[in-house]
């Protein structure tokens, strides 16, 4: 885990993880540690952990769908000011097709398709960007505090 700025009003922590479903628990542990360090409201913490884990899961399931044994790593950066939390994800998988990123209709009850819905429910904004080299995808989630 690396701290990019220790200024109390602009905190940022970044860590990378192997792109694999077994890394998801490590992504959650990292997020919980950072939110405790950043003193994020306890009621909000687990919701944010869920949103982060769902976004990381989407990288494993979709960006690396055809590469289950990849040794690539993905990075998660959590930044916080007094007013806003910004969570960025970086990966080198298949480029995200924004038009295909959608959740299932919530009243069409069936397994799957809820991860993106949870992210939308929890976060205030979701932006897909092209990643700066070496990254391919950069997802940015924000939440007003």
């Amino acid at each position, binding site marked *: 885990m690396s701290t990019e700025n220790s200024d109390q009003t602009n905190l940022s922590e970044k860590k990378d993880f192997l792109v694999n479903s*077994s890394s998801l628990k490590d992504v959650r542990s990292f997020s919980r540690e950072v939110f405790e360090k950043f003193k994020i409201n306890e009621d909000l913490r*687990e919701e944010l952990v869920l949103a982060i884990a769902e976004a990381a*899961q989407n990288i494993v399931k979709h960006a690396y769908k055809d590469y289950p044994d990849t040794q690539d790593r993905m990075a998660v950066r959590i930044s916080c000011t007094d007013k806003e939390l910004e969570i960025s994800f970086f990966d080198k998988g298949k480029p995200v097709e924004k038009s295909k990123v959608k959740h299932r209709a919530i009243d069409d009850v069936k397994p799957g398709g809820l991860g993106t819905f*949870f992210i939308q429910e929890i976060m205030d904004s979701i932006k897909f960007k092209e990643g700066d080299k070496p990254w391919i995808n950069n997802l940015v989630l924000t939440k007003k505090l």
Partner: protein
Amino acid sequence: MTYKVTEEGNSSTVFLDGEIDMDKTEGAKEVIFPIIDSGKDVYLNLSNVQYMDSSGISVLIESHQKALEKGTKLIIKDVSKSVLKVIMMAKLEQILNLE
């Protein structure tokens, strides 16, 4: 994730433990589905599951639907506060049998 199964008459209670994510869903299905296939009602005790993501919710939906197809019941018991929050976020509290 760890689990324990107890049996009483024509029902079984499955106690799941830990965090249920994409990495644990196959294990959960391997425990729950054979009981449903055997025609028994399943009580799924989630009191010791402190975290569940969309993959875990999918297991609950799939188990519920499988039970309906088999003419049995899946009853979800003692849901922890954190998991209930996720079930409600998915608007499933009126769909799943919560006790």
